[in-house]
């Protein structure tokens, strides 16, 4: 059963039988709980310090702290928002398939004894929170090195409320996409398509960095980036295998799929660079790895090892070319390539999940379609609806949010600040004094 199914079932029962909640205690499995506690730590680790270092190393030295600052501040803001009403909007009782109600605001009912499936609901809520944190975290790669810090904070709250929470509800919270049978094991649509679409819109609305693309803007510290990449890989074990919400064979197979796709993505990107530029780079390898991970995310609990290999290879090929296309042909300054890696990867993976979940593909077979769906065609159709709806909705709402913030308090720092660097001007600090 997918996460959506498990969660919905558990919530349904909790809602139906609130008084019986205490009696549920026996339903908590300590092994499953241990694994989801661990997975929660792993997914937080992906953002702090994983993503922070990954992104921080890629910008210029004068802006490194601004990126680290944004990662920490987003974590703080989203966490408090989650307690206040974010969790409830996402996983509260379903309002017409569109959004959750406010019945779980302030974690109402999420006590020590509340249970979700075989784990405490507190653990479920925190595990989900770590996904809500990393998603806007991913977006910041698009507008790095030029967005006002205050604008980042406003953007985080509004975007989490208006984009992240509803889409999560659609897919995992009992909403219309989950009901329709969308397969998204760990966040292909919820995390990667939303982040990628928002990144694309952000890059276009805020505009290019001063000097792009003529001035070289190489990463200032690739050791940070590679360290962060390693942390992302490790943390992704929790992201995908934790999304099984249990420590069982399903988690094990998700782990296999995740690891193989990351490997295949890394090697494929490396091969593409070697062929096209004559030399493979470590930034290429780790980007391919992230592409492989992002792309397997929706599919990880539904495909087999060979299917995962196919997805990883596809991720490398498609995201490599998408990155070049966006930068060289379209000339868009999505500074840290969020859209071509996460957005494109998330869409690709969600669609491929619909194919490779099929149990009738011989060695490429997966673990089966969504309940009530019987063919690749129908499953892919549902997947396409999921991708399209998520992408379209995110693009429109993100655009409105950014324009509103720009009108009210301005999105972009002034030229002098951009030249001097955000670290000194916005935060009165410097990254290094060696």
């Amino acid at each position, binding site marked *: 059963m997918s996460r959506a199914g498990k969660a919905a079932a558990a919530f349904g029962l909790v809602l139906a039988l609130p008084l019986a909640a205490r009696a549920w205690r026996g339903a908590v499995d300590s092994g499953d709980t241990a694994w989801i506690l661990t997975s929660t730590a792993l997914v937080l680790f992906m953002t702090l310090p994983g993503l922070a270092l990954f992104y921080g190393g890629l910008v210029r030295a004068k802006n490194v702290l601004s990126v680290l600052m944004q990662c920490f501040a987003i974590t703080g803001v989203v966490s408090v928002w989650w307690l206040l009403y974010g969790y409830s909007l996402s996983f509260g009782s379903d309002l017409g398939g569109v959004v959750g109600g406010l019945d779980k605001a302030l974690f109402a009912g999420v006590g020590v004894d509340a249970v979700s499936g075989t784990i405490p609901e507190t653990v479920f809520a925190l595990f989900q929170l770590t996904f809500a944190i990393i998603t806007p975290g991913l977006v910041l790669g698009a507008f790095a090195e030029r967005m006002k810090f205050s604008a980042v904070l406003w953007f985080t709250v509004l975007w989490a409320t208006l984009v992240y929470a509803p889409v999560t509800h659609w897919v995992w919270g009992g909403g219309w996409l989950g009901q329709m049978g969308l397969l998204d094991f760990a966040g292909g649509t919820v995390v990667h398509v939303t982040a990628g679409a928002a990144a694309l819109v952000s890059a276009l609305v805020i505009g290019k960095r001063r000097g792009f693309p003529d001035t070289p803007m190489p990463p200032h510290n690739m050791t940070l980036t590679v360290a962060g990449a390693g942390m992302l890989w490790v943390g992704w074990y929790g992201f995908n295998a934790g999304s099984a919400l249990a420590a069982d064979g399903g988690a094990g197979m998700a782990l296999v799929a995740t690891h193989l796709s990351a490997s295949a993505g890394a090697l494929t990107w490396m091969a593409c660079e070697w062929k096209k530029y004559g030399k493979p780079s470590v930034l290429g390898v780790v980007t391919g790895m992230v592409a492989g991970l992002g792309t397997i995310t929706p599919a990880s609990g539904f495909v087999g090892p060979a299917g995962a290999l196919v997805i990883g290879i596809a991720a490398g090929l498609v995201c490599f070319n998408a990155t070049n296309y966006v930068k060289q042909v379209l000339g868009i300054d999505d500074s840290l390539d969020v859209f071509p890696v996460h957005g494109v990867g998330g869409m690709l993976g969600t669609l491929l999940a619909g194919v490779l979940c099929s149990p009738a593909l011989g060695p490429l077979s997966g673990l089966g379609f969504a309940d009530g769906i019987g063919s690749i065609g129908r499953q892919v159709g549902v997947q396409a609806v999921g991708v399209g709806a998520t992408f379209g909705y995110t693009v429109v709402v993100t655009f409105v949010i950014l324009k509103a913030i720009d009108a009210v308090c301005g999105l972009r720092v002034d030229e002098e600040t951009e*030249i001097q660097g955000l670290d*000194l001007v916005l935060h*009165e*600090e410097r990254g290094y004094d060696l």
Partner: protein
Amino acid sequence: MKLVIAIVKPFKLDEVRDALAEIGVQGLTVTEVKGYGRQKGHKEHYRGAEYVVDFRPKVRLDVAVAADRVPAVIDAICRAARTGKIGDGKIFVTNLEEVVRIRTAETGPEAL
């Protein structure tokens, strides 16, 4: 021959280099330096400790040229490096008694 030493703002480096290349200067040497002058420094804050850093990042260019090229070089640097704001930097000119190209042991203007 003269050695022209220019202290300019770091983000102007590429423009200055291009301006010099345009007038035929074929070589130069760049050093990262910290400047202290009329341009105010910046503050830094760390847990309630406030530091005033008076030094600003600058780059220093050393350009060896034949004596008659000096005005053109100064002019090129000034045009490319000027923002009109305080802290644009200085140019110093000293005399060079000898120049040697290590690879060929050539000396004098042809070593440049």
